[in-house]
């Protein structure tokens, strides 16, 4: 059976949750094989990949993968595709994941579908477009389907298998080494789950009133083990770092639960959170459009409601 290639997202030698989701999804389509691009592959990664059912790990242990923007990764992936002859290639729908998918499509002359939320065994992809108002089924009609999949589309389930490592040597071309990474700047690394991967996201908007106001948002997030998000009004005002922005020009999230506090629900914000499985809203204006999306909403002052909710969650956790 032709393998289903899953491109691994990793940081510090650890496989990210979205990859475990993709491996789970890949098992419903065929035999998953992982592709590790860059340094850092070790026992930790191998055992994670085996636990989630990858039979093979193609490893391209070459620092060019991370020292230059995207082009080397695409060249390496194209080489792995040639060697593995997969039935499909799954990539996480991150900003860079989509870039890799797009470039690979040109290299291997295949169709590409982005932002899938499900894939059927016949490789028909389901997409949720126009801010979640329309469900589309698409198929790739030329080449090997390249599909990027949104985080939180599949619940990761373990299914251990024996993993074998295959090292792939790829001489990266001079042309692919044009955009050199000369430095990396980490904005405050929170101990919270990553925004686009988190099962629960607690967000604050202009209603939070200022940087200090995010204290109550963070406390609630921590009680729920959630990531913190923000509207653009809040990030533009400098109340919360920009990489936590949810929406059209920020992250797209589709967690199990999204809690919107002091956010009005502008179309650009909705575009990033509308596909959340469950939405809870706290806003003092009963006319705020965000209530249209709410499974449960409270019209009230977030500074009263949110701390009370945090206390209650703590109490119930015991």
């Amino acid at each position, binding site marked *: 059976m032709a393998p289903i290639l899953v491109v691994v997202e990793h940081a510090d030698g650890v496989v990210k949750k979205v990859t475990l989701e993709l491996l789970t999804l890949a098992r419903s389509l065929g035999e998953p094989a992982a592709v590790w691009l860059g340094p850092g592959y070790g026992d930790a990664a191998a055992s994670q990949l085996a636990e989630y059912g990858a039979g093979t790990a193609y490893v391209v242990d070459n620092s060019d993968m991370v020292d230059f923007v995207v082009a080397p990764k695409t060249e390496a992936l194209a080489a792995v595709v040639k060697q593995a002859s997969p039935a499909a290639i799954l990539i996480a729908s991150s900003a860079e994941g989509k870039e890799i998918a797009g470039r690979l499509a040109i290299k291997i002359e295949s169709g590409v579908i982005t932002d899938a939320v499900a894939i059927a065994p016949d490789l028909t992809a389901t997409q949720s477009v126009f801010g979640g108002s329309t469900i589309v089924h698409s198929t790739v009609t030329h080449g090997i389907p390249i599909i990027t999949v949104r985080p939180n589309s599949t619940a990761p389930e373990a299914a251990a298998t024996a993993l074998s490592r295959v090292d792939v040597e790829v001489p990266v071309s001079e042309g692919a080494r044009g955009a050199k990474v000369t430095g990396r700047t980490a904005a405050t690394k929170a101990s919270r789950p990553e925004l686009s991967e988190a099962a629960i996201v607690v967000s604050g908007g202009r209603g939070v009133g200022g940087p200090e106001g995010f204290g109550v948002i963070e406390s609630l997030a921590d009680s729920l083990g959630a990531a913190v998000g923000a509207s653009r009004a809040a990030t533009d005002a400098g109340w919360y770092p920009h990489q936590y922005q949810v929406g059209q020009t920020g992250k797209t999230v589709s967690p199990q639960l999204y809690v919107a506090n002091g956010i009005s629900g502008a179309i650009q914000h909705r575009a990033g959170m509308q596909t959340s499985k469950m939405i809870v809203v706290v806003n003092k204006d009963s006319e705020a459009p965000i209530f249209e999306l709410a499974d449960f909403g*409270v019209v009230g002052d977030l500074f009263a409601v949110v701390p009370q909710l945090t206390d209650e969650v703590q109490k119930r956790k015991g």
Partner: protein
Amino acid sequence: MKIAVCVKQVPDTWAEKRLRPADSLLDRESAEGVLNELDEYAVEEALKIQEAHGGEVTIVSMGPERAVETIRKALSMGADAGIHIVDDALSGSDALATSAVLAGVLKDRGFDLIIFGSESTDARMSVVPAMVSERLGLPQLTFAQKVDVNGGTITIERQTDYGFDSVEASSPVVVSVVEKINEPRYPSFKGIMAAKKKPLETLSVADAGVAAGSVGTGAAWSVVADFAARPPKAAGTIVNDEGAGGVKIAEFLATNKII
């Protein structure tokens, strides 16, 4: 410095977007077309670089007849010239075809910088800039929150999950910008008047050096099998906070086994 900015006409953000039952293509007629919001930042960045380093800014757009309004808007902001690729054969083109046409037009014109928005608000694929970079074999400086030009060396801050990467390349380069980068200017009355007289080149697919048979619906490498409106969401429960709003949310979360 010769700068190209690729802009797309998209349905107004606030308009309800839908697919046409007959061919599963976006219904572009029913909504007003506007300059993709994110491309305004690309135009602004080009104008800023021009102000600091001199040169010429050319707007490039592929789209139907009326996409010319979008090019005019960018010209009224201050760009110098426009190129409009319009051809019936293009209808239904996917990102692969779009990038092939744009690359064909951009290829031999000696641009030092080719600037894109980071995403079109209708397709939302965020792949066209990377694809053009791949096709032209030019360094990819995408998702820039800052662009510095120093002679032939272009440095950007590339937005990432954890913060940003500093990335450097020699021109010519492909750049895409995020909305954080600047504050787009509004066209002045003078700008709007001047735009009417600026040079506008109209090209066909053949002029772009691309075979008509390799673009459009028929040549797309992925197809929409079917689509449907998402079933309307059942109205949620909305309560007024009378002192126990937080507790009520907790109860709701407990009922749904979230806590």
